C-alpha cells in the first residue's frame, strides 16, 4: 500500500487535487469534521498521513511514507535525505529578508556585521548570509517573526512572503529574496529504487 504524507494547511487542498489526477482520492481529509490523521484513499490502495509541514520530509526520509508534498522552503530548511521528484507549481511564495520601512538598509549586504536576524528558517538564513560573507547573529523564533524589527529584537527578519500583506500591515518591507518556493512532490529514495512501477505511475501522473 502506498503511504503519502500531506502537509496540513495552505498546501492541502491543491495536494489532494494533484493526487486525484493520479487516481488517489484523499478528499476525506478536506472534510472539516475529519479528525483522523491517517486517512485511506477512496480506492483503498493508499493512505494519507496528515502531518505538520516540517514533518513531511521526516516521514518520507524514514520511509514511513513513500511520497509526500511539501514546500521547497521546508525542504531547504530541514535538508532531509528525500528525493525531489516534481515541482508541483502551487503554493508559490518567496523567502525574503525584510526590514522596517524606514530602515536605511536597502539590500542584505547593507546590513551591519553581527546584526541580529530573526527567523523561523535559521538554516536558510545562515546559508544565505554565509554566501554573502556577512556574519550575523541568528535569533530563532517559531512564529510572528514580523515582531522582530518592531520590538527591536532584530534588525531584520528572514521569512516567507506570499502576497506581502503581513509585511505591509506590520510596517516592514522586503529588501532581498533568498529563493522562490513552490510545493514539491518528494519520495523515499530507497522505496523509489525498489519500486516496480507502482510509485512511478503516481509520480508520472502528477508530473502532468
Amino acid at each position: 500500500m502506498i503511504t503519502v504524507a500531506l502537509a496540513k494547511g495552505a498546501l492541502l487542498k491543491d495536494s489532494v487535487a494533484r493526487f486525484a489526477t493520479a487516481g488517489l482520492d484523499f478528499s476525506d481529509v478536506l472534510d472539516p469534521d475529519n479528525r483522523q490523521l491517517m486517512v485511506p484513499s477512496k480506492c483503498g490502495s493508499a493512505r494519507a498521513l496528515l502531518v505538520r509541514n516540517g514533518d513531511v520530509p521526516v516521514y518520507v526520509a524514514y520511509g514511513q511514507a513513500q511520497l509526500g508534498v511539501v514546500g521547497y522552503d521546508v525542504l531547504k530548511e530541514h535538508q532531509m535525505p528525500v528525493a525531489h521528484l516534481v515541482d508541483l507549481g502551487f503554493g508559490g511564495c518567496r523567502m525574503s529578508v525584510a526590514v522596517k520601512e524606514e530602515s536605511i538598509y536597502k539590500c542584505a549586504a547593507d546590513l551591519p556585521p553581527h546584526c541580529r536576524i530573526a527567523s523561523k528558517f535559521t538554516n536558510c538564513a545562515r546559508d544565505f548570509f554565509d554566501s554573502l560573507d556577512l556574519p550575523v547573529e541568528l535569533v530563532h523564533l517559531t512564529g510572528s517573526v514580523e515582531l522582530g524589527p518592531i520590538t527591536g529584537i532584530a534588525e531584520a527578519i528572514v521569512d516567507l512572503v506570499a502576497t506581502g500583506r503581513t509585511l505591509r500591515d506590520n510596517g516592514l518591507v522586503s529588501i532581498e529574496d533568498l529563493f522562490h518556493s513552490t510545493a514539491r512532490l518528494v519520495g523515499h529514495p530507497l522505496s523509489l529504487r525498489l519500486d516496480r512501477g507502482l510509485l512511478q505511475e503516481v509520480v508520472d501522473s502528477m508530473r502532468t
Partner: protein
Amino acid sequence: MALQPAAGARDLIPQQVKKNQEITKRLAEVYKLWGYEEVSPPRIERLDTLTAGGGIANEDIVRLVADEPLGLRPELTASIARSACTRLKTRERPLRLWASGTTFESRVAAGGGIYIEENLQSGVELFGVKNISAELELLSLLLESLFKLEIDSSHKTKLLLGNTCLMDLVLENYEGKIRNKIKHNLIDYNKIGLEDLEIDIEKVNGLISILEMRGPASEIINKLKEKYGEEEPIRDLARLFKQLEPIAEEKGVILQLDPTFQPHFELYNGLVFQLVCEGKSSPVVIARGGRYDKLVASCGAKSSEAAGAGFSFSIDAIREQITTINKDILVDNNRTLITYGPQSSLEDAMVNQRELHKNGITAVLELDCCNTLEEARSLLPARNCQHIKWLNN
C-alpha cells in the same frame, strides 16, 4: 531520573542476546562451509585506516581522546583489508575471511546532539580476485546465508544491485562540475535537480530515463547494451544475473538492477548491493556490500592483488525481522530451582547444584531459605524455572 545508556547505544536483554547469537552462529556455519576463516579485527583503529578508501566521512567516526588520532570502527571492512595487506600479505589469494562484531557510527540527532549508533555486524571479505568471479561467489553466498536465516518470500526481500562502472558510462560525456552535479542528482534520486541543470533537454530526459529504469534485469541489461554497447561491466552483469536468477527465485528473493544505485561515499568501485526486507512500515536494509579494490590498494597491496569485495549483515536489523527462530533456542525450558528448608542449608543446596551441573542441567540456587515446599514451588515462575529440587533434611 534513572541512569540511561548513551543515545543510540545497544543495551540488549537476554532474549535479544540469544537471538543475536543464534543469527551470528547460523551465518558463521555458512561462511565456514564456503571456506572462510574467522578473524577478529580491533574495535579501535587509527583514523587513517578507518577513512582509507573514502568509505566513511570523518564526522561519522566516534573519535577517542588520545595522543594519536584514533576512533571506534564504523565498519569491519577497512580493518580486515589492512590485516589482509599486512599480517596476511604472504597468504595465497584468494583469501577468504569473515568476522563479526560491533561497529560504532556517530550521527547528529534530530535535536542537534550527538547520537552514537552501535550495531552488531557479521560479514565476509574476499581478497585477491579482480574479475566477476568474486561477485558470483559472494552473491551466491549472500543468498545461501539468507536461506539459513529463515528469511523467505514472506519478507518480500529484494536484492538491489548497482555498479559504479555503469554510473561511469552514464557520465562518460560529462566533465568537471556538471559531471559532479549530475552524479549527485542521480545518487540522490533528484529529478528536479536534473531538470534544473543547464544542459540540453534531451540529455536531461536521457538521464531521467536511466534513473527510472526498472523491470526484469534482462530487459535493463538489453537497454544498457543498446545505449552503451557491449561494455565489460554490462557483460559481467549479464553473467552475474544468469547465475543469480535461479537461486534468487528458489529463495524467494526479487533481484532489482538499478543502473544509478550507489552510495555517496567513494569506497566502492564496481558492484554495489543492498539486501532489503519489507519491514512493518518501511524497507529495512539487512545487508550491504560491494567491491572495494581502491581500499585494498590504499592498504598497500601490490597491484596484481589489489582486489577486494565483501558484504556485511546487520544482525540487529535481522533480529527484528525474524519471528520464526525456534523458540526452544530462545527459551531454556529445562531450568531447575534448588531450594532448601529450615532443616537444610545453602551449602547443601550448592553441593546439589554441582551434581546437576555435572549432568549439564541448568540449576539455579534459591539463596533464601523457604519454610515449606509449597512456598518453594510458588517461586518457580518468578525464577523462570520449570523444575524444583527441595532439600530439607
